[in-house]
């Protein structure tokens, strides 16, 4: 790929007080790709996604998006640049309705697009249409996950950051969420950076992947390469199709 990447993380370090959670991470995401970031619990995956958005800030290194240095860009500007995140723990607004959560997803967007965008989200997740007036906090985990992804899509992102979308979901639902991610990527041309502990599914879906160990990238390669790698098989795929 000769074109400049859409997102380029260059030697980024992130600290929580004295603790160094990211110890010089570099990775690239090209337009149109699905890139998986896998790693054990506590490796720094969520920290990396949040650092890309600017909270916590990178203490060293550089983050370049679409040719611009966004390392110091305020958090609330990211969505206007086209970066949306479905963060760790989903963070839906529990005391608001499903519809209100989606409206907030469109907060920074052009109101003229709202009807088309919500129709698109309801087409991808028909369940949300049925539940649009329900308080989000009373929905099941799977429904909340759909809402978190749908809310992120409401801003018409170019780059979608997904943090463990399969966490805590029943296997059937996991497959469904991954199908939807593929569809978002293929038919909507949204670039995806996907954080997963569920390495098997993530690497099968992704074009490329990175393995994060203790705040540093240990390995990278195409999805099939990483799936075939014996170290990965042992460390992350031991439980079979997890």
């Amino acid at each position, binding site marked *: 790929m000769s074109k400049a990447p859409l997102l380029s993380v260059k030697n980024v370090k992130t600290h929580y007080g004295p603790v160094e959670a990211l110890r010089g991470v570099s990775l690239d995401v090209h337009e149109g790709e699905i890139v998986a970031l896998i790693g054990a619990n506590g490796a720094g995956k969520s920290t990396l996604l949040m650092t890309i958005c600017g909270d916590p800030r990178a203490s060293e290194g550089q983050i370049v998006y679409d040719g611009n240095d966004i390392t110091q860009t305020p958090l609330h500007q990211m969505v206007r640049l086209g970066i949306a995140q479905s*963060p760790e723990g989903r*963070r839906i607004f529990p*005391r*608001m309705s499903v519809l209100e959560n989606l409206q*907030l997803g469109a*907060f920074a967007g052009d109101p003229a697009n709202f009807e088309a965008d919500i129709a698109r989200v309801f087409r991808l997740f028909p369940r949300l249409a049925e539940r649009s007036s329900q308080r989000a906090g009373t929905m099941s985990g799977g429904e909340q996950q759909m809402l978190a992804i749908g809310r992120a899509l409401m*801003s018409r992102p170019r780059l979608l950051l997904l943090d463990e979308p399969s966490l805590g979901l029943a296997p059937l639902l996991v497959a469904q969420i991954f199908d939807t991610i593929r569809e978002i990527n293929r038919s909507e041309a949204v670039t995806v950076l996907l954080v997963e502990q569920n390495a098997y599914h993530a690497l099968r879906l992704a074009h490329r992947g990175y393995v994060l160990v203790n705040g540093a990238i240990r390995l990278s390669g195409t999805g099939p390469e990483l799936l075939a790698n014996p170290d990965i098989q042992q460390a992350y795929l031991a439980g079979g199709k997890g």
Partner: protein
Amino acid sequence: MEYLIQQLINGLTLGAIYGLIAIGYTMVYGIIGMINFAHGEVYMIGAFISIIAFTILGPFGFASPVLAIVIVLAVALIFTSVYGWAIERIAYRPLRGSFRLAPLISAIGVSIFLQNYVHMLQGAKMKPIQPVVRGGFVLAQEGNFVVQITYLQIGIIVATVALMAGFTYLIQRTSLGRAQRACEQDRKMAALLGVDVDRTISLTFVMGAALAAIAGLIFTLYYGAVDFFIGFLAGLKAFTAAVLGGIGSLPGAMLGGVLIGLIEAFWSAYFPIAYKDVAVFGILVVVLIFRPTGLLGRPDIEKV
């Protein structure tokens, strides 16, 4: 019976003032989780700006009361909002992320500062004005006792109901209101969705101050005199109203305000007036024993 109706009207008028101030407490608590103890002083400043503006308008104001009130309202809204905005910017924002009591202590400091500042500039004496709005309807008469609702009381109650309806709409149905509620529930997530959290918090203080300014103007019109100390007790009562209704709840603040206005009016009518504040706080205690989250407050059931 006649007396009862008269006290109902008086109580509602008083409740309108408490309710408008209480909204400021409850909204700020909702969004940054602190009691803005300086809010009573913001209301006092709103009342002072109103009385000063009426004084400057002078004889003209009493010739055309409606126009005068509109002008004074605009002046009070603008200046009081600036105070509300500045208090947050100077005294609270730098302490965000500091230990929990820090902004509370700062709020008490701001409160003392503002009282003394007005005391210094305006003196300790009551500042009176001539009644701006006169007259009313006689609803009933029994012997010497006349039940009357003044034009001013009608105006106050109508304006308060309209303001509360408008405000509920703003918070529940508009993009700004959704952004405020989003900041209440999860600030970082709100920012990820494009909400400028600092600006939203500033706007919340400005809105609270604007409503306090209106309450101050109402007080000025209704009682005709203002001093630098009126913010203390009114602030305490309005804060009580917010807690009684359920702190963080907008309808709760309104309900709490009206209830406290009514309790005060009825207590003063039938029992020793010296104990009316005791009655108000006594009822607060009783309600909190049975409903610790206030009348309309929500227990936090759905933790994520």
